[in-house]
């Protein structure tokens, strides 16, 4: 489009053409102020993400630190992270099926059953633990394949299939373990996941790597956008993001680097489970944000028919999502037995609803199509803080269950209300 100078009265014509170009923006333009305004606009439209959960986390932390002198100690912080790890993993596993608008009620017992299998193979049949672990993961993958077959291929609601499996796997676990049986976890490598810490320097190195990767990804994205000729967000946002990671991560590592041993020698460093969770979180987020599989999970959760008409292999994606969920549930089981130190016939029976609660509290929609892995992780932290804080106040499981249940209903209400606000319910097919 050449901007030829016409001296005569054809004033408005070139003006509108310029205007056209400006009207289609990309949402990336403008100063920090513009970006902030756009963010608040999204909030008003009900697109709140993990904000309520983050706010809840802050409020609960302040509340419990006033109510209990033990809550804000180095020791309790490390303890909180290891307590939360199992739930964080399970919540992240469930995100993959929740995005589709499906549910996996058997994720908990899948973790329990595979761990029962694992421990019996090692303790009774003297199978090398690495091989037993491979078999446990294979059992998890098989479980997901089984669920996926009935949900995606046969077309049975996932609620029904996984409820059936929820009962069936409790029975299977009972058969594997034997009634009243309890097996100790004596494999040092497994125990170490939740009970040992990295050297202090490794914690700081981990933070450095996280910052490097975040910066690298941000600048890679910006370079690609520049190459395509579309505007980038102001670079200040990248620095803010890196700054937030550095401050929060730095504070966490600093606290965990102090000696929290109480007359039992030196206990310091970031628990080993933390980097494992972070790596899975990063890979999962990468897959959800940047690959076809991830995008199609969101698309199917938003409008499965639209996805199908666009050539998305809906059945295959659905099926795969259940396999991913069950496989990650095995990891969650591993964290659990590492923390508890034993496996019994009730393993994994109670945790699944907490996993769903974690995801929903964090802002993952039960209706599908909305949510991120980080949301589930933050939601799991909220629930872990409630459990931990009430425990410190000597309020037992009764109060804990009631509070957690209340938080879940509150979160589901926020989910439903924000759906109506964003007009989602009008276009469901």
């Amino acid at each position, binding site marked *: 489009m050449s901007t030829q100078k016409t001296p005569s009265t054809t004033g408005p014509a070139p003006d509108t053409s310029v205007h056209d170009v400006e009207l*289609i923006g990309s949402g990336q333009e403008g100063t920090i102020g513009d970006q902030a305004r756009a963010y608040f606009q999204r909030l008003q439209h009900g697109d709140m993400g993990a904000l309520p959960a983050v706010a809840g986390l802050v409020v609960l932390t302040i509340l419990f630190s006033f109510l209990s002198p033990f809550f804000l100690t180095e020791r309790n912080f490390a303890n909180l992270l290891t307590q939360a790890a199992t739930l964080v993993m399970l919540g992240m596993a469930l995100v993959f099926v929740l995005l589709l608008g499906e549910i996996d009620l058997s994720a908990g017992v899948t973790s329990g059953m595979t761990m029962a299998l694992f421990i019996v193979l090692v303790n009774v049949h003297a199978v090398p633990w690495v091989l037993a672990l491979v078999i446990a993961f294979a059992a998890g993958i098989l479980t997901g394949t089984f669920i996926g077959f009935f949900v995606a291929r046969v077309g049975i609601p996932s609620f029904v299939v996984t409820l059936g499996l929820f009962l069936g796997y409790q029975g299977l676990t009972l058969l594997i373990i034997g009634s009243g049986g309890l097996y100790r976890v004596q494999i040092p490598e497994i125990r170490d996941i939740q009970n040992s810490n990295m050297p202090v320097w490794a914690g700081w190195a981990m933070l450095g790597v996280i910052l490097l990767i975040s910066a690298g990804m941000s600048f890679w*994205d910006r370079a690609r956008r520049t190459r*395509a000729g579309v505007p980038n967000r102001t670079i200040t946002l990248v620095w803010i993001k890196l700054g937030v990671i550095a401050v929060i991560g730095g504070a966490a590592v600093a606290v965990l680097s102090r000696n929290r041993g109480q007359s039992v020698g030196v206990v310091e460093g970031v628990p080993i489970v933390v980097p494992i969770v972070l790596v899975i979180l990063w890979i999962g987020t990468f897959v959800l944000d940047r690959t076809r599989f991830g995008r199609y999970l*969101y*698309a199917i959760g938003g*409008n499965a028919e*639209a996805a199908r008409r666009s050539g998305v292999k809906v059945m295959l994606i659905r099926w795969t999502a259940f396999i991913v969920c069950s496989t990650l549930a095995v990891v969650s089981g591993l964290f659990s037995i590492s923390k508890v130190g034993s496996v019994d016939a009730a393993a994994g029976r109670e945790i699944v609803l907490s996993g769903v609660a974690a995801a929903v509290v964090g802002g993952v929609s039960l209706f599908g199509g909305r949510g991120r892995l980080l949301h589930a992780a933050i939601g799991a932290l909220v629930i872990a803080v409630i459990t931990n804080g009430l425990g410190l106040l000597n309020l037992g499981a009764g109060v804990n269950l009631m509070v957690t249940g209340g938080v879940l209903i509150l979160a589901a209400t926020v989910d439903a209300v924000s759906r109506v606000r964003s007009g989602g319910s009008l276009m469901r*097919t």
Partner: protein
Amino acid sequence: MDAPLIELSGILKSFGPVSVLKGVDLKAYPGKVTALVGDNGAGKSTLIKGLAGVQPYDDGVVKFDGKPVALHSPREAARLGIEVVYQDLALCDNLDIVQNMFLGREETEFGTFDEGRMEKDASDTLRSLSVRTVKSVRQKVSSLSGGQRQTVAIARAVLKNARLVILDEPTAALGVAQTEQVLHLVSRLAEQGVAVILISHNLADVFEVADHIDVLYLGQMVAHLDARETTRDDVVGYITGAKVQQEATA
């Protein structure tokens, strides 16, 4: 007249005992708008679902560029350059405009999305259609109005050099101004050399943009008309079955 881009002959489709398409013929020409009209239940939707590869025909010949082709999946249709804009739009509310336009055919680099390129192409396509009502291509579709959604759906169809675009009731839910805008879009598509099949109940719209009018009546093609040589009353007659064209076609 040019050779037709797509030529259907003897198309059959039934659901169980119900025969919906009973030997339908249809032609669409590049650069022309072919209107497909017919009453509810005439088989229009079934006919285009077959063209889209969503719901394959039972029998019949489909020729594209004069060569017989099989349309068994949306991917095969897309590969030929056949794009359908559905009545219920088939957009994902929870995704933004770019993500919707590229759904099922994302641009990737090393297996991961090249968002910049997709955003560029999406903006360029919207501009080429002189769309001026969309604020940002990164808006979620849930925040768009009916006309804007229709615009996105049509832009999605022409994004990847479509050769045949099928529009199913594109103006059904729109106001006057937005209808005018969408019809302008339809003419613009044809000007770009695309073969357009327009399905509509609104005969005013049909006469405004169509070159040919084909009438489907209870699963059979009862009339192939030239839009300049026919009248509204004739078309209504064929649609309701009151009038039957003499089969003297070559």
